[in-house]
């Protein structure tokens, strides 16, 4: 019986020892090698006194070592916490402190970033994966890979143990850590393998960074089926022509990404003249795929099946809508129905179920649901809807905060957000967090951040009011944002206004600001 994520690699190493588990550019690793190397990393962490429930950071770009880091940390009994290398140092430090991280697994490419973090962060004890020594204990990958395993004792990992914590933006201005267990991660991995009938002959492309939940499919579902995961390099994601070549060369059979990447492939990748007949599933999630664009892609790759996947990180994934033929109209496609081991309700503001076909807020109960938010019980409580069944027994649902309704075919339609959370290029951004960051700058008195539509592109634009006695430049504010926010949440432009348009109740009139910006 398989009940934890570690068994994924252990089992595939037995069944497909010589098969390539992960490939990155010209490097690859077999299941057997991955099993050994991840045990060596686990042994290394255990010798540093890592205990079950500890958190170990992964600060890496997409590279081959990511899979060793994930499974090595899991085998040690700890939970892995991805740290986006693009995060500003302030944010990295917050994350390390918030999560109580003492050990970070990295690669030589991150040495500059690591140096900076180590010099300012006293709680770190060990850096694994660096060749040059730092002020604290540093262990290179070469040293990890010669670690003898005779005395290595595998940790007894239960389904309910913590497996990973993914940080996403929080509305108060501080990120929140979403905790998943081995059970919730494995439930997701299994449901994917089942729903899309993953085979050991599949080639799965992973373009997502580790801190993005989309990555769990490539790192857990694919190895569960004994399939090969191709880790797409950061460089390829910046050049659609190179990416298109890679997908053709690797003969990818299953693709999963945000719609944006597929749209770039479609328009800039020159995919019209290449061979993608191996592609059998195109999965996308993270934001709405404009139906027009989806149809264009489906006409180019008619042999593949398509699946619109929905689910906040708190739930991994929970609904899907599969398509074999292109949609006829330009109406947005549904997010579909919940998958197995999952149920939902649509509630009004008073937590009563709405009538079929009426708008309401989606709450979901699923085996793939998170354990809660790290170190934030109040937030966890507020995010849950508890449906009482009997005294002492209740069903716990996660409040997605997404507005939905059912169509005539009983499929869910996504209508928007209840709050100020937005999706930009697939990234979840809390408008409140960006505004609060700007307000922390000395002299900024008010801030309003809006999403402006420029032709097909959405951009984040900030407008602020400042204390006129101070000389504040728009570029100062931009630097401040860059130093405190993830790069995708940094507004494209920051404009200093003399006053804001207001509603009759005195609130900032964001719709008017949008009009002003459009007119500029």
């Amino acid at each position, binding site marked *: 019986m398989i009940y934890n994520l570690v068994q994924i690699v252990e089992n595939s190493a037995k069944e497909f020892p010589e098969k390539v588990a992960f490939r990155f550019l010209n490097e690859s690793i077999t299941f057997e090698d991955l099993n050994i190397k991840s045990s060596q990393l686990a042994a290394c962490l255990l010798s540093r006194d890592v205990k079950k429930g500890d958190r170990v950071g992964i600060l890496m*770009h997409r*590279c081959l070592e990511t899979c060793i880091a994930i499974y090595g940390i899991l085998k040690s009994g700890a939970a892995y916490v991805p740290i986006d*290398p*693009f995060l*500003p*140092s302030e944010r990295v430090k917050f994350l390390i402190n918030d999560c109580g991280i003492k050990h970070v697994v990295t690669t030589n*490419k*991150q040495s*500059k*970033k690591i*140096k*900076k973090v180590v010099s300012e962060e006293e709680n770190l004890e060990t850096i694994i994966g660096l060749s040059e020594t730092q002020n604290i204990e540093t262990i290179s990958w070469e040293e990890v890979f010669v670690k003898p395993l005779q005395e290595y004792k595998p940790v007894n990992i239960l389904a309910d143990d913590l497996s990973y914590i993914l940080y996403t933006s929080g509305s108060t201005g501080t990120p929140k850590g979403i905790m998943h267990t081995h059970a919730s991660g494995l439930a997701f991995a299994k449901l994917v393998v089942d729903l899309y009938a993953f085979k050991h002959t599949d080639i799965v492309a992973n373009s997502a960074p580790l801190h993005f939940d989309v990555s769990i499919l490539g790192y857990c579902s694919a190895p569960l089926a004994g399939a090969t995961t191709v880790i797409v*390099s*950061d*460089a*390829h*994601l*910046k*050049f*659609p*022509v*190179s990416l298109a*070549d890679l997908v053709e060369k690797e003969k990818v059979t299953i693709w999963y990404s945000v719609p944006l990447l597929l749209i770039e492939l479609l328009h*800039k990748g*020159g995919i019209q003249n290449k061979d993608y007949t191996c592609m059998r599933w195109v999965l996308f999630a993270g934001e709405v795929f404009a139906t027009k664009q989806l149809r264009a892609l489906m006409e180019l790759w008619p042999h593949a099946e398509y699946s619109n996947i929905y689910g906040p990180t708190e739930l991994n994934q929970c609904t899907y809508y599969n398509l074999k033929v292109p949609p006829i109209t330009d109406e947005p496609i549904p997010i579909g129905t919940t998958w197995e081991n999952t149920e939902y309700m649509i509630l009004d503001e008073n937590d009563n179920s709405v009538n079929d076909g009426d708008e309401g807020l989606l709450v979901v109960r699923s085996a793939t649901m998170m354990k809660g938010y790290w170190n934030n019980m109040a937030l966890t409580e507020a995010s849950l809807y508890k449906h009482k069944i009997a005294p002492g027994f209740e069903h716990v649902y996660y409040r997605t905060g997404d507005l939905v309704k059912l169509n005539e075919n009983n499929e869910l339609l996504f209508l928007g957000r209840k709050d100020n959370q937005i999706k930009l290029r697939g990234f979840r951004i809390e408008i409140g967090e960006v505004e609060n960051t700007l307000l922390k700058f000395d002299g900024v008195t008010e801030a309003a951040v809006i999403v402006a539509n420029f032709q097909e592109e959405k951009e984040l634009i900030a407008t602020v009011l400042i204390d006129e006695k101070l000389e504040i430049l728009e570029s100062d504010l931009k630097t401040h944002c*860059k*130093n405190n926010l993830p*790069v*995708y949440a940094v507004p494209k432009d920051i404009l200093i206004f003399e006053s804001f348009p207001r509603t009759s109740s005195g609130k900032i009139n964001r719709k008017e600001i949008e009009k002003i910006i459009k007119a500029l």
Partner: protein
Amino acid sequence: MEQTIIKHIEEELASEEIDGGLEATDDLLGGGILDSLGMMKLITFIEETFNIEVAPEDMVIENFMTVENICEYISSKG
């Protein structure tokens, strides 16, 4: 040419201050110096500053991996 590009990346495009400055041989794409948006901006800057047009088929990793690669590419267009 090299210095113009380095200066522009350091001052305008880098996601954060680059410790010890940027070198012509530094990996711009895999090392976390530029994100996708930054790369698009860099291409626009190169087109405007050096008065060339980067054709879609030229937008490949080999031409933009490092500042050195970029300079070689621009020279090949001249």
